[in-house]
């Protein structure tokens, strides 16, 4: 009889025990598949958010603004925005250029109708955008859940639903906002809520409102300017080529030499950390599988002690120690293969379900200034399945080599005489 047939039969001699071992590996396999697809989902979510909300493929700002951004020096802005947009969109591979102005300030609500006095204060961020120009970047229409988009030139705004609830405003209501200006003074303006937005970014919902760029320019005294310029490219992953072209343009024009272009990948530290997170998650997956595999080691050890005399007889009948090792190894290998098939099937179903439903972290991310959505969608890739197949089968089979060595060292005479 072939060794593989014997090994497969042996696996089912203690069905409950074998099933428990397999179940442990199955759980570790499902968990591993989920973790790998979650970190990939987080990374692509972060990339999407950075491109839409923060930088586009390339972001241009005054170099001095980047240097002192902790002081919020909004007087260091880009002048003659329209002219620069024209120059940049003429570069091969740049598909769009939009200006944005973002300032922090205080919303004063609950204005007394008689005295006109504003009382309650809330911290908020205002972002001036070119609504028509942002249709392929921030895509404001897709964020709109109530009301309508603000008209350019008006004092209408689109407010995050969390912020709207916090200050108690709805469409048609008004509030006043006070913030620093590019003239290094302070200004306040009253805005009317035209629409409510719901963004995947928790921070955006809880702290932001959007207003027309031209109104914002007037409000913060940034005539014809913007704080930053976001450039789009056909393929953000390959935007280094366009970045070099943009840098050449900025370097060659003395009026633009104070500007600095940054690639989306260099925005913040968190995206870079996601690469390290992927590695950490891989190590964690291996750790979970090793933890699960200890059950297989235990099961194999028990099988060896139970079949002590049988091993002796097999040895006396001429079975070599290496063949004994192979026998137990094959038993574990089959357990690993079955675990992988079941674990990957169930894991794939679970992850595909979560890919549709998403994992809602609710308000947990509201106050966190990271480029991650409050609802995360795992992203299952083929390489996750291949990697998990390798991890599950490989680890479960390899760990049995430790107890198998014990079986190989058993002397047939001792085993037969053992009571």
């Amino acid at each position, binding site marked *: 009889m072939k060794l593989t047939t014997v090994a497969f039969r042996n696996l089912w001699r203690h069905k409950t025990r074998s099933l428990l071992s397999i179940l442990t590996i199955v759980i570790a396999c499902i968990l591993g598949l989920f973790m790998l697809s979650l970190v990939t989902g987080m990374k692509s979510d972060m990339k999407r958010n950075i491109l839409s909300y923060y930088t586009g493929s390339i972001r241009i700002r005054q170099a001095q603004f980047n240097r*002192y951004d902790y002081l919020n*020096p909004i*007087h*260091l802005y880009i002048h003659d925005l329209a002219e620069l947009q024209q120059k940049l969109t003429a570069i091969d591979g740049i598909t769009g250029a939009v200006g944005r102005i973002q300032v922090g300030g205080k919303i*004063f609500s609950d*204005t007394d109708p008689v*005295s*006109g*006095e*504003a*009382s309650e204060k809330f911290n908020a961020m205002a972002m001036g955008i070119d609504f028509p120009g942002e249709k392929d970047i921030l895509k404001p229409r897709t964020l709109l859940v109530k009301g309508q988009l603000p008209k350019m030139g008006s004092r209408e705004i689109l407010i995050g639903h969390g912020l709207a609830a916090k200050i108690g405003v709805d469409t048609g209501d*008004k509030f*006043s906002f*006070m913030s620093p*200006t590019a*003239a*290094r*003074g*302070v*200004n*306040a*303006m*009253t805005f009317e809520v035209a629409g409510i937005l719901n963004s995947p970014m928790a921070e955006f919902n809880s702290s932001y409102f959007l207003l027309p760029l031209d109104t914002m320019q007037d*409000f913060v*005294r940034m005539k014809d300017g913007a704080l930053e310029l976001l450039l789009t490219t056909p393929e953000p992953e390959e935007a280094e080529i366009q970045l070099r072209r943009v840098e050449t343009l900025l370097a060659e024009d003395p009026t633009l030499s104070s500007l600095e272009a940054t690639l989306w990948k260099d925005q913040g530290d968190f995206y870079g950390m996601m690469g390290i997170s992927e590695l950490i998650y891989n190590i964690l997956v291996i750790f979970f599988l090793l933890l699960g595999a200890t059950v297989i080691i235990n099961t194999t050890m028990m099988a060896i002690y139970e079949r002590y005399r049988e091993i002796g007889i097999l040895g006396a009948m001429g079975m070599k120690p290496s063949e004994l090792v192979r026998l137990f190894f094959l038993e574990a290998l089959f357990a690993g293969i079955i675990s992988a098939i079941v674990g990957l099937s169930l894991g794939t179903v679970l992850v595909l379900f979560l890919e549709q439903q998403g994992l809602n972290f609710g308000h947990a991310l509201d106050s966190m200034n990271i480029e991650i959505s409050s609802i995360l969608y795992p992203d299952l890739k083929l390489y996750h399945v291949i990697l998990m197949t390798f991890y599950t089968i490989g680890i479960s089979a390899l760990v049995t080599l430790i107890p198998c060595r014990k079986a190989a060292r058993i002397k047939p005479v001792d085993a037969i005489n053992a009571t």
Partner: protein
Amino acid sequence: MSNHRKNKGYALFILLLVTLLLPALAAAQSAEEIVRRAEQVRGYDSAYIEARMVNNDRFGSKSISYRAWARGDNFLMEMTSDAEYGQKILRTEDRVYHFFPDSEAIFTKSKGDSIVGLISYEDVTDESRILDNYTVRLDGEESLNGIPCYRVDMEVKRGRRVAYPRQTVWIERENYIIRKVRMFTRTGTPLKTMEVRRVEEIDGQRIATDILITDNVRTDVTSEIFIDQAELNLPIDDRRFTRRELSR
């Protein structure tokens, strides 16, 4: 000990106590007198000024020009520089309001909030009497840039709400002009220092026309107030100091 000797002992003790406390009592009176005279020097019923607030930091200078009217405890400022044109600040009934032409709301501000740089609402709008809000104590005399000055410590009276709970004021001995003010928190941490760099005589009154403000922590930031023009004791309509007038 006989009663007579005992009484004599008490009398001696009281005399000694009075002798020791007398200079201190005299000094306390003297501090109040110094402050009162300093306020008399500043004393005008009403004023109109045209002035500038300038802030200097690592990014350069920011100047806000304004005109202001003051009478009693009331103060109204109207900004005239391009970027702030039409903004108004009113202080009346010990409250500060800031009006912006682009806003339908009128903002109530804390006296200690900054208008620009180190200059707070309190610094430019405060017309109240020192002795109404502070208890004063003469801390000694000191020469300030060669000018002999009284150094007076001021501490806020219980129940009074002021931007600076503790201050030390240097008052010129010869003419009772306030030369320097150092502000502290309630616990005594220094906040900032105001120094008068120039005093001019306007309509018979000596007015500080160039003031430098420095910060005890942010040493790279300074603020200045320049009074370019002033008219004193002129008639000002009561309505000017009302919230209704702010949005006109």
